[in-house]
C-alpha cells in the first residue's frame, strides 16, 4: 500500500513536472488580483470614486478577454487608512488568497509598511494609484516590485527648477516646510537646479504654525538671492511671503501646488504677486483620456473628476496587460512585464474593453504594445515612477491663471537631462 502511494506520488510529481513549459500558459481560473484601499476611515470620501474606477478597469479587462483566457477577480480589502490594518490586508491577500499582484493603496503612510513587510520581501508586484512619497522607489525596500501611476513630487520639483532657470533667475533661496513633503521637494530641486544653470544660495527649513517667520526669512535673505522658492502650505506661506516682501526680498517667488488657492493669493495681496509663479500637475488630454471619462460617466452617472480616479484605472489596466505579457503569473515575471506595457515602437493601445482586446491579440502574436491610459502615456522610469505633464500658473488681475503647460514629452526630456 505504502509503495503504491509512493509510486503514485512520484508519478504525480513527474506528471506535474513533465509539461512544465506548457503549463506556464495554463493558469488556474479565475485569476485573482489583490486590492487594498481605505474604504472606511478619514479617506473614505475620496476612496469611493477610486474603488469605482478600479471596478470599471476590472470590467474592461474581463470584457476584453481577461488574463491568459481567464476571468479576473479583484479581491478588495479595506486598510482603514491605518498601517497595521493595511499590512494585515496585504498579508491576507498574499498568503491566503495567493494573489500574484496587488493594487494599492492611497496613503503613503500605509503603502510604505506594506512594501517593506509584505510585497517587497514576497516579491509581489504592487501598483499604487496615489502614494507619492519618493522614498518607496528610491531606498531599495521595494526591490523594484513597487510601481505607481501618478507623478511623484519629483515631477513638480524638476518643473519648478526648469521654470526658475527659464526665467533667468540665477540665485535662488529655498524656504521649505520641515516635513517629508518639503524635504523631498527640496532634495529634488537641489538635484535639478544646478544642472539647469541655477544656483541655490540658501536652504531654510521652517516648522509650521508659528506666528512669525522673520528669523527664517532673514536667514534666507542674508545670501542675497534673486528669487525665492517657497515650498509649504498656504496659511504659513502668507506670513512668510509678506515678511519676505517687507524685509526687502525680491518679488520673484516660485510656489508649489498647495499655494494655487485664492486664500493664499488674497492673503498676501494679489498686487504683490505679479512676478511670482507656481507649479502643479496638469490634467492630460487625449483620446484615451476622453474614452475613460466617457466610460466612467456612462457607468456611474457622475463625472470622473477627483484625486486618484484616473491613476487607479491605469494601475489596474497596467496589471491586466502586464499579466497577459508575463510568461507566467509569478511576481518576477509580472514585474518584468510591467516595463513592457509601454514599449518603444509598440502598437498604441488605449482605454476601454475593445482596446484591451486589441492589446491581447497583439500580445498573443508576440508584438510589443504601447499603453496610453486614463492619464496619458504610462511609461515607468528606472525607479517605477511615472512622469506627468506640469503646468505653470501665475497671478494676473487678482486671478490664478495658467501661464503655460509643460508637456509630458518636455518633462521626460527634462528628466533625462537631470538624471
Amino acid at each position, binding site marked *: 500500500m505504502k509503495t503504491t502511494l509512493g509510486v503514485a506520488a512520484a508519478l504525480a510529481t513527474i506528471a506535474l513536472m513533465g509539461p512544465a513549459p506548457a503549463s506556464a500558459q495554463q493558469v488556474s481560473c479565475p485569476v485573482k488580483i489583490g486590492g487594498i484601499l481605505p474604504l472606511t476611515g478619514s479617506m473614505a470620501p475620496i476612496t469611493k470614486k477610486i474603488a469605482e474606477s478600479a471596478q470599471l478597469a476590472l470590467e474592461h479587462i474581463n470584457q476584453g478577454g481577461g488574463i491568459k483566457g481567464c476571468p479576473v477577480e479583484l479581491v478588495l480589502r479595506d486598510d482603514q487608512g491605518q498601517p497595521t490594518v493595511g499590512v494585515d490586508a496585504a498579508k491576507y491577500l498574499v498568503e491566503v488568497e495567493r494573489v500574484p499582484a496587488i493594487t494599492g493603496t492611497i496613503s503613503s503612510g500605509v503603502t510604505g509598511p506594506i512594501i517593506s513587510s509584505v510585497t517587497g520581501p514576497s516579491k509581489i508586484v504592487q501598483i499604487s494609484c496615489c502614494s507619492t512619497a519618493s522614498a518607496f522607489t528610491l531606498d531599495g525596500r521595494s526591490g523594484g516590485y513597487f510601481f505607481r501611476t501618478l507623478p511623484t513630487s519629483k515631477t513638480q520639483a524638476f518643473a519648478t527648477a526648469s521654470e526658475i532657470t527659464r526665467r533667468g533667475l540665477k540665485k535662488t533661496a529655498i524656504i521649505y516646510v*520641515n516635513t517629508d513633503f518639503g524635504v523631498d521637494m527640496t532634495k529634488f530641486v537641489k538635484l535639478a537646479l544646478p544642472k539647469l544653470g541655477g544656483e541655490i544660495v540658501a536652504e*531654510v*527649513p*521652517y*516648522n509650521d*504654525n*508659528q*506666528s*512669525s517667520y*522673520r*528669523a*527664517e526669512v*532673514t*536667514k534666507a535673505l*542674508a545670501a542675497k538671492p534673486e528669487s525665492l522658492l517657497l515650498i509649504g502650505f498656504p*496659511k504659513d506661506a*502668507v*506670513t512668510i511671503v*509678506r*515678511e519676505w*516682501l*517687507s*524685509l*526687502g526680498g525680491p518679488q520673484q517667488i516660485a510656489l508649489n501646488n498647495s499655494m494655487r488657492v485664492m*486664500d493664499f493669493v488674497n*492673503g*498676501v*495681496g494679489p498686487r*504683490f504677486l505679479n512676478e511670482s509663479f507656481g507649479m502643479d500637475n496638469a490634467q492630460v488630454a487625449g483620446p484615451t483620456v476622453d474614452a475613460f471619462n466617457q466610460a466612467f460617466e456612462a457607468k456611474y452617472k457622475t463625472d470622473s473628476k477627483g484625486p486618484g480616479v484616473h491613476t487607479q484605472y491605469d494601475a489596474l489596466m497596467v496589471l491586466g496587460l502586464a499579466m497577459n505579457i508575463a510568461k507566467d503569473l509569478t511576481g518576477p515575471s509580472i514585474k518584468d512585464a510591467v516595463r513592457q506595457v509601454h514599449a518603444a515602437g509598440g502598437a498604441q493601445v488605449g482605454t476601454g474593453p475593445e482596446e484591451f482586446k486589441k492589446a491581447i491579440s497583439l500580445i498573443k502574436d508576440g508584438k510589443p504594445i504601447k499603453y496610453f491610459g486614463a492619464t496619458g502615456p504610462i511609461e515607468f522610469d528606472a525607479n517605477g515612477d511615472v512622469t506627468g505633464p506640469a503646468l505653470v500658473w501665475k497671478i494676473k488681475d487678482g486671478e490664478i491663471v495658467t501661464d503655460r503647460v509643460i508637456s509630458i514629452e518636455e518633462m521626460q526630456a527634462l528628466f533625462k537631462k537631470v538624471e
Partner: protein
Amino acid sequence: MLGQAIADGILTGAIIALGAIGVSFGLQILRFANFAHSELVTWGAYLALVFVTFAGPGTPTGPLSFGWQLIAAMVFAGVLTGVLAWVVDILVFRRLRNSDAHPLSMVFAAFGVALVMRHVVVLIWGHGSYFYTRELQIALEVLPGIRMLPDQIFILGLTFVVVAAMHLYLTYSRTGMAMRAMAESPSLARVCGVQVESVVRWTWFISGGLAAMAGVFLGLTPQLHPEMGFNLLLALFAAAILGGAGSLIGAVVGGLLVGLAENLSVLFISPGYKTAMPFLVLLLVLFFRPQGLFGEKEGSR
C-alpha cells in the same frame, strides 16, 4: 545678520511678554497654570477685528499701516477681553476655587475652557485667516543691517509704555499692592483685610487686557486665525516660568529671552530646531535658579 536677529528677537519677545504677564499672574496670584490664557490672546485679536470691521482699519497714519481706529479697536478689545476673562472665572474657575478643587483639576478645567473658547472662535469666524489691513509695509533700515517695519517699532514702543505703566500701577496703587500681597501669601493677605475676590477680578481683567494687546499685535504681523494664541502657548509659559512666576518684570524679561533665544539660534543651527531653543534656555535657568530669574524663593521670608 546678528543685529537683525536681535531686533527680531526683541520684537517677538515683546509680544510674548504681554501674554506672559497674564500667565505669570495666574501662576502666582490665582495659583494655577491657566492653559486657557492663550485663548484670551486669540479672543482679543478677534474682538479687535469686530471693531475694525465696523470702523475700518483707518487710513494709514504717517508710516504706519493703520489709523487711529486700530488703536481704538485695541482698547475696545482689551476691555472686552478683560471682562471675558472675568466671566470665565465666574462660570468655571471661581466655582472650583470655592470648592477647594485640586490644582490639577483647575489645570484640566483650563484645558477644557481653552478648547471651548477656541472652537467658539471657529464657530463664529470660521477656520480661515483674517487681516486687519491689506497694506504691506516695506521695512526701514533703522540701523545699518537692521530692518524693521514702522508698525513693529510702534508695537515695541507701545509695549514698553504699557509695561512701565503697569509696573508703576502695581508698585504704588492699592490694588497693585493687594495683588502683590496675594501673590506673596493668599491667607496672610486675607487676614490683613485684602478683598480676595476683588483682587482676583482685577487680576483677570488686567491679564485679559494685556492678552488682547498681544493678540492685536500678533494679528498685525500679519494674520488672524483661530490657533494664533494656542500656537504661542508654550512660549508664554516658558517666558513666565523663566522670569519667575508672579513677577511683572520677570515676565517681560522672560518674554524677551524667549524671543531672543528663538531668533539668535537661527544663526547657529537649522531653523527647524528654532522652537526648541527657549526650552533649552528655560532648563538651563531652572537648573541654577529653580524659582526663575526674578522669582522669590518659597519661604525665603
